[in-house]
């Protein structure tokens, strides 16, 4: 899904990109580049998000009704498409975060057991 261009960067775990986008938008509405930057920054450069994954994800989340979008002016007064988390999206984020936590814990237990 998410691509990596350098070896020190990691591949995103399958299916997590959607969750990361939702999480990023939980703070405030953002445009595409902003979201990519934020994910990169917060992960301290571990994840680099490729547009080839990012934009299909936007379309997918939009279709699912978790995001909606709006054309707004940016800080430097250009027109950009802003993505906004919907109420459904917020609930979905919560559910996915919980599920993710469960899975991480389970995987950790398996790794420790051996």
């Amino acid at each position, binding site marked *: 899904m998410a691509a990596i*261009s350098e070896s020190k960067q990691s591949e995103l775990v399958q299916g997590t990109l959607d969750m990361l986008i939702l999480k990023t938008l939980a703070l405030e509405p953002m*445009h*595409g*580049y902003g979201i*990519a*930057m934020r994910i990169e920054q917060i992960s301290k450069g571990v994840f680099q998000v*490729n*547009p*080839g994954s990012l*934009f*299909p994800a*936007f*379309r*997918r989340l*939009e*279709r*699912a*009704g978790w995001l909606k979008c709006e054309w707004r002016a940016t800080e430097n007064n*250009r*027109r*950009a*498409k802003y993505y906004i988390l919907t109420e459904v999206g917020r609930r979905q984020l919560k559910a996915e975060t919980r599920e993710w936590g469960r899975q991480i814990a389970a995987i950790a237990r398996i790794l420790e057991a051996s």
Partner: protein
Amino acid sequence: MFALRKFLGGLRALFKKEREEGELDEELRDFVEQRAATKMQMGLSRQQALREARMEMGSMDSVKERVRAVGWETAFNSFWQDIRFALRMLRKSPGFTTVAILTLALGIGANTAIFSVVNSLLLRPLPVEDPGEITVLGMQQKNEILSQYFSYPEYEDIREQSSGAFSGMLAYRLGLDGLSVNGQADHIITSFVTGNYFTMLGVKPFLGRLILPSEGKTPGADPVVVLGYDYWKNRFGGDRDVVGKSVSIDGHAFTIVGVTPKSFHGLNSILNMQAYMPMGMATIEGDFKGDFMADRNARGFIVFGRLKQGASVQRAETTLNVIAHRLSEEHREDEKDLALSVFPERLARPVVLPHNPIIAASALFLALAMLVLLLACFNVANLLLVRATVRQREMAIRAALGGTRARLIRQLLTESLILALLGGGAGIMIGVWGSAMIGSINFHVDLPIFLNFSFDWRVFTFAFVAAALTGIIVGIVPAFRASRSDLNELLHEGGRGVTGAHQRLRSVLVVAEISGSLMLLVVAGLFTRSLENAQHMSLGFDPEGVLNLTMDPHEVGYTEAQGKEFYKQLLERVRALPGVESASLAFSVPMGDTYTSKTIAVPGYTPPVGQQQPNVSNNVVTPGYFKTMRMPVVSGRVFSDADDEKAQQVAIVNQTMAKRFWPHEDAIGRTFWAVSAPKKPYRVVGVVKNAKYAAIFVHGESYFYVPLAQEYTPIETLQIRTKADPGNMAAEVQKEIESLAPTLPVFDVQTMEDSLGGGQGFLIFRLGAALAATLGILGLALVLVGIYGVVSYTASQRTHEIGIRMALGAQPEEIRRMVFRQGFFLVICGLAVGLLGSFAASRVVGNFLVGVSAVDPVIFGGVAVLLAVVTLAACYIPARRAMRVDPIVALRYE
């Protein structure tokens, strides 16, 4: 909810495609810009920053493609693209397209036509409430055949004791009656029904009311009649004021109380019932006296049950077994060794039969039609294989331009599916025509036959599924073949495309085709032979030159005395007509639809242990009968006018009956009597030659005749042997009848030869032979086209090789032999496989044949030789063409 949103999003995208595309474009460009801006802040030049940003993104088009691929509408779009492309390709080669569509249309059409018949005969549910719960009861006494006729007391007992498994049970009796109104009488088919008939079925009146549950319990008590919709339309012109009107049925006054809905035709699947009367009114029928409601042996009632909700047929059968046992204990004489059975209504059409041959025949003909479709598939698959070879280069180029293999296969399958669906559309038209042809069969009987072969959703679904499957079957192998091309080899000049595997596959197709068509032809041959045998079978009488007219004076209320007088005068007048050789009356016409039988006791004859008293069919005739029918008398005498009601009761028996009951002595002068009338014995006065009686396919039946004067039955067929064409006399005779009895309906007016074509006669043989022959000829045509195509294509592919051979000194004759040999080998293989298949199929077919073995060597051999000659001729033409190849031209082709 979720799916709906996705769907709506996709729909929006489909319609606002351009706007959304523009937005995506802008968004992506923006992304690159901002990325570049960030990189410039890190110290890169603008040009270098932009370059890097673009490289990170990769091809903008591919990103867009991936975004587009998210929604379902993309799949739709590319599907639409495939369809348009496929249509363009098909238009580009109209010859191929036409041949393919026509071939498939023939195959699908044959299937659809036969399926529409099967649908009408077996699948379409009764137009009643919850038709799946409706069942038909059958009964059987030891060593008797399975029957669907019960007596009224039996019905009552079973109904009362079976309420655990059935929520309702009705009985009805078919009747032929005369309905007169305004001095005009019609001969109609009627049902005498129990009061719960309509309520149990859940049928609502179209006009007025139907028979009420309270009606019909007392003989003669409720003179009301409900008309069938079509009869009401035809006879009363759809007059809504008909309710309350008075009519006369068999001379009794009745009041019309209602009309049934249009969809309801009664409970017999092939008759269109014209009127319904309460059961108690069955007393108006001449042969049914008032005590039928108490007589355990007066069996003439068909019993339908509605299963309780959730109750299975098995459970119902268990319940009935208990009842049967109880009844045979309680009534040791009448219900001896009674067994009851129950059938889902659809499996008991048109009547309850031991192994319903309609189901077996349906399966057989559907299988034959499928075989035809399979042959059509082979032909089209072969055409597509050829095309695949031709299009290998196109496929290679598309693959080089980035088309994935799956995409190419999808494209090719779309093409074959479109072909098949177009073929299916044309096939439906052929099917409509075909089922109309089958529906136009003449039953040679004046009854409202109800055959509705119209195309409902079941037939359309069948045609659609057949077409879709056909599309996949014919397309899948060529699609995989074509898409598997090796890019490198093909794009280099010199890839000649023909590979060994192709050849093998094609050979298999040819062998399969020959064997399939051999099976079709063998079945066609067997059925034709069987029809021939049936038509040349010794009937035991001479049907040529005889005219039949049937009438029932009881239908206009004639008493026995009036009826006898009428018939006496009628015979005198008809005999006086010029051109009449002899005239007589008979209750039963061979292969007709009225017949009767008696359970008899013969002094000195005891039935084998465990068997009932013998039940023997009989006829009621006037003295001239044997002369009119030209039935030879073996010994004794025929009836005379002296054998009247005052004289001793006499009978004439056939040879089988004489031999069965009086094997060691002369039958003449012996006596026997009907179990129902032991005090009135018959004395045998004559023995006549055996003949065919009820049905053409029944052999060696015992049979006897009694004189009409001693045993009056009102319904009689006037049979006239004429010197000239009997058909020409019909009008004249009808005029005589009209002058004697002005309102009497006369029906089944036809020559004896025509009447032999009816349902008990040649009808099913003719129908079977016609259907099998049609399918066989279709199969033959398909195999011819197929083999010619394959052999000539293969030969043309070998032009180069042939050129080299000839350049190296091969003689034209050798070339011809080489090409021919290949075809010859395939034909022999095909014939061998086909003969094996025919042997396997013969067991099923054998059940439908008369006078011919299902593995008849003449037919098997004849068909094999015919097919060999025809297919080898189809190989010969291309072989001759190959012989004339000019080596220079063939080699220069490179």
